[in-house]
């Protein structure tokens, strides 16, 4: 259980100390694992090897369960698949025997394939449905292993593969499994701390916001299902070797439960936590022999306790950094001057225009033939009473709703209706009425999510920590910090977002949206819940953003803010334009005054 979690982001800012404190627990575990042979007997070699093999599987599954939040409870099926694939290929039941290395690679490929097959439902279904489909798959694999006697040996079983010397002794095999565990830790930590890992957590905790930043859920999930499936099946090959002889009975559902619960006890979105969880759950029944029969019961009790009493798991216990109290009475002081670096000057942008847009929910015409033109570099206010269709208009522009009629275009190009993940690439960014952030991620990580689509490195490059991945991380972290400076929150960069106050979350959302260097920025009630001072500073910030050439569409109830900073104002009522013009014209418009402003 070695580990070198690559964290280039911290290498710049946090310095070597931060990295050392991240690495220390992994190195400590490695040291303990290395001296184990000298202080114990072969029995512990077996347990240690088992823990290492389980961790090979769990390190991949952790990305599915802990990071992406998909409750895959039947992963023993992929372990079974890998164990049988390796054993059958080495034994030569269906074709001439192949060398162990090739068999293990083949198992990995089969596992990756079935990892995606099992995972496919997760693209459309969440939680219980997905849990059920993995459970169903687990029952089927065992049944097939039992019934397909000519290949698997049925209930009698099949001999597992053997590693060549020097790995054929108990401790030799232990060390090679340790090496594999180290490599998988390194790879999964690389993915976890890359833009892919952050995107997975974003999909888990703030799916709508993730779509607005252009994160494609299917591509992201398929990548980790491939990865987790391959690791699980590879672990299966090692497991078959450890068992020396496998029957379907060896792959009980209890193993699935162990893998799954190890991650939840460890804590979501952590690498160290689930690793400790795996070790603890593997050792627990061994040190208390009478408990062995009750081990699954014990795991279940642990799971219940974790869910009810300690949702953060071990990782939250170990998170000392976020226990330090934050300064109270924090004032947000944005520094719009910083925009000169963070946001390039745009000239001669395209007009964002809506023509005759209609959107109905049942019989309600939420938007009823709306025309709207937002100019680059201008601030366009969108006001109106509750239910007049302001937020709905933003949702149509950012693709969450497909308009029933009418067109949406950016310059000469039409914007495809109803495809939120494509908006970020077209330069349209937005914030939400209730901030949609990842509470468990740091403020900086939340902002970096905004730039996910700008990364160049592929999933494989991130996994192997290749140079392009480091360049991405440095670029995203630098931009994120610069934008946090712009909105005045750089001192909170490393703090968990759920510890911040509401007004700060609004500014984080703006910083995240600016990561895209958007052509158009859609703001949904950014001033709600802010103090008068903060609203004033927000106004100055929005003006500075527009001055860089970004068009701003501002939905807001604070009429003062609207009239102070907007170049154009459109007033909606019942989904139609009630009035449009400059703030000065709107302020004296009779119907607006009577319908909305009061007077």
């Amino acid at each position: 259980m070695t580990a070198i979690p690559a964290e280039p982001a911290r290498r710049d800012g946090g310095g070597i100390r931060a990295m050392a404190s991240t690495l220390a627990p992994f190195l400590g575990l490695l040291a303990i694992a290395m001296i184990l042979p000298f202080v114990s007997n072969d029995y512990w070699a077996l347990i240690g090897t088992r823990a290492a093999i389980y961790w090979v599987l769990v390190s991949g599954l952790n990305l599915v369960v802990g990071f992406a939040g998909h409750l895959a409870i039947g992963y023993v099926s992929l372990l079974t698949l890998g164990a049988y694939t390796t054993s059958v290929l080495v034994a030569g039941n269906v074709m001439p025997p192949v060398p162990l290395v090739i068999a293990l690679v083949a198992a990995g490929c089969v596992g990756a394939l079935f990892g995606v097959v099992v995972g496919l439902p997760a693209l459309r279904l969440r939680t219980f449905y997905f849990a059920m489909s993995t459970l169903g798959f687990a029952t089927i694999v065992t049944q097939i292993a039992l019934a397909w006697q000519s290949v698997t040996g049925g209930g009698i079983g099949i001999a597992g593969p053997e590693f060549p010397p020097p790995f054929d002794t108990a401790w030799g095999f232990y060390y090679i499994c340790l090496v594999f565990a180290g490599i998988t830790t390194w790879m999964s930590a690389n993915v976890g701390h890359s833009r892919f890992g952050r995107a997975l957590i974003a999909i888990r905790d703030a799916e709508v916001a993730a779509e607005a930043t252009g994160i494609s859920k299917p591509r992201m999930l398929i990548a980790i299902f491939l990865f987790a499936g391959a690791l699980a099946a590879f672990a299966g090959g090692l497991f078959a070797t450890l068992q020396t002889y496998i029957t379907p009975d060896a792959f009980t559902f209890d193993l699935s439960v162990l893998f799954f619960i190890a991650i939840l006890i460890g804590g979501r979105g952590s690498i160290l936590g689930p690793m400790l969880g795996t070790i603890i759950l593997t050792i627990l029944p061994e040190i208390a022999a009478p408990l062995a029969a009750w081990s699954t019961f014990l795991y279940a009790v642990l799971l219940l306790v974790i869910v009810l009493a300690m949702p953060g798991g071990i990782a939250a216990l170990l998170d000392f950094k976020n226990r330090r109290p934050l300064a109270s009475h924090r004032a947000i002081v944005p520094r719009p001057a910083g925009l000169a670096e963070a946001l390039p000057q745009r000239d001669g942008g395209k007009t964002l225009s809506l023509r005759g847009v209609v959107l109905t929910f049942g019989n309600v015409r939420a938007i009823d033939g709306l025309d709207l033109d937002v100019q680059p570099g201008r601030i366009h206010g969108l006001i109106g009473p509750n239910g007049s269709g302001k937020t709905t208009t933003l949702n149509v522009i950012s693709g969450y709703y497909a308009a029933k009629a009418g067109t949406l275009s950016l310059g000469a190009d039409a914007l495809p209706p109803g495809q939120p993940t494509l908006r970020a690439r077209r330069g349209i960014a937005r914030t939400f009425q209730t901030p949609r952030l990842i509470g468990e991620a740091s403020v900086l990580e939340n902002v970096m999510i905004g730039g996910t689509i700008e990364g160049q490195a592929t999933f494989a490059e991130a996994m192997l920590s290749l140079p392009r991945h480091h360049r991405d991380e440095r670029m995203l972290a630098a931009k994120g910090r610069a934008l946090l400076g712009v909105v005045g929150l750089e001192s909170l960069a490393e703090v968990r977002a759920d510890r911040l106050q509401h007004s700060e979350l609004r500014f984080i959302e703006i910083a995240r949206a600016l990561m895209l260097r958007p052509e158009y920025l859609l703001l949904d009630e950014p001033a709600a819940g802010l103090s008068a001072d903060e609203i004033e500073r927000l106004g100055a910030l929005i003006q500075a953003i527009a001055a860089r050439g970004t068009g701003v569409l501002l939905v807001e109830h604070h009429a003062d803010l609207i009239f102070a900073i907007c170049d154009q104002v459109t007033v909606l009522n019942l989904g139609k334009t009630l009035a449009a013009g400059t703030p000065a014209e709107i302020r004296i418009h009779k119907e607006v005054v009577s319908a909305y402003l009061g007077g």
Partner: protein
Amino acid sequence: MLASILASGLAAGAIYALVGVTYNTMFSTSRVMSFTAGQLAMLGGVFGSMFTLKMGMPILVGFLLTLIACAVIGVITEFVAVRPVLKSLDQHLYVLSTLALALMIQQVAAIKWGTEPQPFPRLIGWGSGAFDEKFWLPVAACALTIIGLEYLYRRTLVGRAFVAIAEDNFAARALGLPERNLRVASYALAGVIGGIAGFSGGELLLAFFANGALLNFYGFVPVALGGLGNNRGAIIGGLALGLFQQAANFLVGGIFSSVAVFTLFIVVLLAAPQGLFGAATARRV
């Protein structure tokens, strides 16, 4: 062979349908899908065998005690695994808490009852061949349960209160309905339905601890196909699933029937995530 397929298909289907109704009954008042649904049906068989064969009680007494025991387990589910996580329903913690409880139930059954399938008594002794009571009993139990539920939901005040909570929780609470007590009651009712499923299917499935996980899956398939909370969908889906499974079982063999059911499940869910009779999802943004 057609007779066997129909008999065993309808019998298994009726059990799946009842487990589906158990899921729905818990879901209707709490918006929670509970992993204990299949375990309740497993306990129906285990308790039934325990009371009548092990303890030698009369069938009727054993049946009533089984239902009471299952109702108690249902109420425990509500208290232990559902109520504490209702506050944050959007985090789907109930998946984990009910899974934990289901595992505990299963493990206790495995250790205290044994891991081998044990016999279940003949209850009435009518019929043979395709009309053996082990085939028609689950179907009759399913029909009677549905009639009973329909009567409850349409004709009684408590039943209407259930429907009100299921339709609109907030509005029902605003009307002053005792939402919490009704929820507990619905979990007891779910326990009873699960118990009926297990007891009536006892001769077919035997008293076996591993039935819980199996019924969890096969009982969930009709719910997923029919749409969450839709009892009619669950019944149609359950019977169709039973027939499909047994037909595949007789025609192409056991493993392929499992593979076929699983494939059907995945394909239907990918094509119609709300189920065939379900309603569209809520607004996301």
